[in-house]
């Protein structure tokens, strides 16, 4: 990487920062409990729209892991998620009715909030349907991980998005509020992922899983990206450039070992495919607020009308993180 190239990336980073600062005007603070944040607290940032049914379990899951404070952007929910979040004692809530797409799928809003509140904290950026799993998460709280990362001078932690799906039709089992979505969507694809290196930003680009297998079998290049770096020791100079797939400065994207070893990494269990999904896909199709003219949702809508089953006989049933480790989907690295 030449000087010129890194200078351009630097300019790009500054541009994204300025954009985030500009986009802050779209956010209206609803409940600001950020005064509760203590130095060293672990923060969670999320954007959501009409995910009320998922929120109780989501908050519960991350509270149990040891997240100290939640910072939510509500993108004009109409299902009561707004009021629900505003009532939570450890949630700070912002509201916006602006375009999700024009905030680069929420990245600008969260970049701003992280710039403002995340500096010096370990920040987890996840969607309400993503559940973070890391090595030893059944016996060690999130703080054990962040302490270890601190001691190892590691600033960012990778977690691949693992699409979970139910057996049978996606809309067969209804999801109730407060229920563990992995009770329903507990199956996943264990070994059909392809990885490419993004030379410019240094991150990996991962595609595969059930979405690539079923929805994009003929157009694999369109399959959604699964690489994510959701946990970062934030500094106000950092920006996410595209969802949580990659960051600038690019050193933060180097979450993989290039010399044969394995770095420690986790998984984001993606419980997107519940009965709520069919409805959601239809709605998102109308709104066209998702990536590349919602190509993903269009593909879903096509397939879902025919045979909404993702399960196959080689699907693995989720047990715990150790299973994912053995399957090679995540790694303990040198954390023991």
């Amino acid at each position, binding site marked *: 990487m030449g000087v010129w190239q890194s200078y351009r990336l630097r300019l790009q980073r500054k541009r994204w920062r300025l954009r985030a600062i500009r986009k802050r005007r779209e956010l209206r603070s609803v409940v600001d409990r950020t005064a509760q944040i203590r130095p060293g607290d672990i923060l969670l940032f999320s954007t959501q729209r009409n995910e009320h049914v998922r929120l109780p379990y989501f908050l519960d899951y991350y509270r149990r892991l040891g997240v100290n404070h939640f910072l939510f952007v509500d993108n004009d929910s109409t299902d009561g998620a707004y009021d629900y979040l505003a009532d939570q004692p450890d949630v700070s809530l912002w509201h916006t009715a602006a375009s999700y797409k024009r905030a680069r799928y929420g990245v600008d809003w969260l970049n701003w909030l992280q710039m403002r509140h995340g500096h010096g904290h370990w920040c987890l950026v996840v969607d309400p349907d993503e559940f973070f799993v890391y090595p*030893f998460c059944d*016996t*060690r*709280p999130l*703080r*054990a991980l962040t*302490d*270890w990362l601190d*001691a*190892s001078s590691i600033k960012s932690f*990778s*977690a*691949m998005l693992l699409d979970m799906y139910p057996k049978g039709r996606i809309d067969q089992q209804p999801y109730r509020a407060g229920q563990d979505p992995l009770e329903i969507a507990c199956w996943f*694809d*264990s*070994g*059909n*992922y*392809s*990885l*490419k*290196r993004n030379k410019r930003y240094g991150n*990996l680009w*991962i595609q595969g899983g*059930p979405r*690539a*297998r079923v929805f994009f*079998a*003929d*157009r*694999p*290049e369109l399959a959604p990206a699964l*690489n994510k770096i959701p946990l970062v020791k934030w500094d106000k100079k950092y920006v996410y450039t595209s969802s949580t797939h990659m960051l600038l400065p690019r050193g933060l994207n180097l*979450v*993989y*070992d*290039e*010399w*044969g*070893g*394995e*770095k*420690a*990494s986790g998984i984001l269990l993606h419980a997107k495919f519940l009965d709520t999904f069919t409805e959601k896909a239809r709605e998102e199709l109308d709104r066209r607020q998702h990536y590349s003219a919602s190509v993903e949702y269009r593909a879903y809508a096509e397939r879902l009308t025919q045979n909404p089953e993702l399960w*196959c*006989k*080689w*699907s693995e049933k989720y047990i715990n993180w150790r299973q994912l480790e053995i399957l*090679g*989907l*995540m*790694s*303990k*690295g*040198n*954390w*023991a």
Partner: protein
Amino acid sequence: MTVGIVMLVHTALNRAEQVARHWTAAGCPVVIHVDAHVPRDAHRAFLDRLSDDPMVRFSRRHVCEWGTWGLVAATQDAAGLLLDTFADVTHVYLTSGACLPLRPVDELIGYLRASPRTDFIESATISDVPWTMGGLDEERFTLRFPFSWKRQRPLFDLAVDIQRRLKLRRRAPAGLVPHMGSQWWCLTRQTLSAILQDPERPRYDRYFRSVWIPDESYFQTLVRLYSSNIESRSLTLSKFDFQGKPHIFYDDHLQLLRRSDCFVARKIWPHADRLYDAFLGETGAAARQTEPSPAKIDRIFARAVERRTRGRPGLYMHSRFPNQDWENGVTSGPYSVFQGFSDLFEDFETWLSKATGARVHGHLFGPDRVEFAGGQTLVNGCLSDSVARRDYDPKAFLTSLIWNTRGERQCFQYGPADNQTIAWMMARDTNAQISVISGAWAVPLFRSNRNFADLRAEAARLQRIEHKHLDILRSAHARARIRIWTMAEFVESPMEPLQTLLDEIGSVRNARLAEAPRMVNLEGFGQFLQNLKNQGMHPYLMGDFPVDPVPVNQTSQPRKPYLVR
């Protein structure tokens, strides 16, 4: 007799207090050194909380930065204070605030009593151990280190570089042989006081002040001057990872720590409540006299370091994406690639899977189809037979297949009509067994019912592709087990090569070949080749094929399925 504890503390003061009280409750005096970096309020509160315990003293504070002299100075002062204040102390045990006693203190005292006048300190000459990190081992003692490694890394590196270039060296004071070892020791009063009261001490101190990481070498070196009986191991269980930072113990290590029978462990995560409750709550009901046996913990941590540095061969994932030639195994296990065999033999796949017990696929990289064994559309790991997906990333397709079927050997057919982008990867892969009957692609053409002009064009194309592939296989960089026969060679004596291949696959079945695969009828093949030649397309990859019908399959009996041996 009793053991005195020196405790170096810089964070997690509440845990340090808890452990200090545990020691004093068992009658062991404690001298605590608090890092000068600890904020005044926190320090004051810590002092206040422990002021009710007459067995606890505080020594003069130094700035303790990793790898610097401050740690040794702090230890010296604290140990001196301990020896002066508590006259009945016979041993001094150096611990940190993140240390946790695993066995009842009585057992430690009993253990030390059983081996009186023994100093437990890991102390090895630097030339004999490969412990050190960052390439500085002997140079720790021969260079000077005026800059901080943690805060002033560029200056630190520059200083080292300049001294190396100028060949600046300094000598250890006369009589000292540099030794190194774990920072955590347990010394007898005699030895320790001899070190602290040595008239030469200012000279030694001056020297060690600019040694790098003196806390791992100061006492370890000087103890060699005075101790009559050195047991070169640390009583503290403390493991280091590949970056030289200590491994940390968590609640889930409880059983492991308990079974280790070590006296003290480091380093404990400050929030590991279960560990602190379990070990500090224990009372030595029946004092045991077991030896510490940290072997199991050693293995676990050694495995963790290996996982980090070498990884799992053949695995490509979001935290392991090795550069080419750094894969440490391109794929995760052995597999076999057969080129030309299924053209030459009828139903070769069935025969092979019977003979070897391996899973035999068809042309996995075929142009129109991914021919999984048994015509399946999905295999292990939900790997699908989508040609588009496979051609999007053929390398990932193959490595995933081999990874997903770990423990079961995979065989597949390959040929010049297939996707060739994977050829280099397989040739580089030591796990691949590639067997080629060159020119056998002509057999299906020969047997097909197509116009000769098309056949000619197709033959020319396939020959060109196979020629390139053979160049790859014959390259100096090819690492696979590669065997190439011309078709003429192979047809002459097919059994020997087949036997060799099967032996190498190492099937569970009996090694001798019972049933031979049936070769297709090659009558007229020689003439077919000649026709191609007559059309100006010289097929050369199949070797010298006679125009006359070949000897095999020439007999009046159409087949000879069983070989009698």
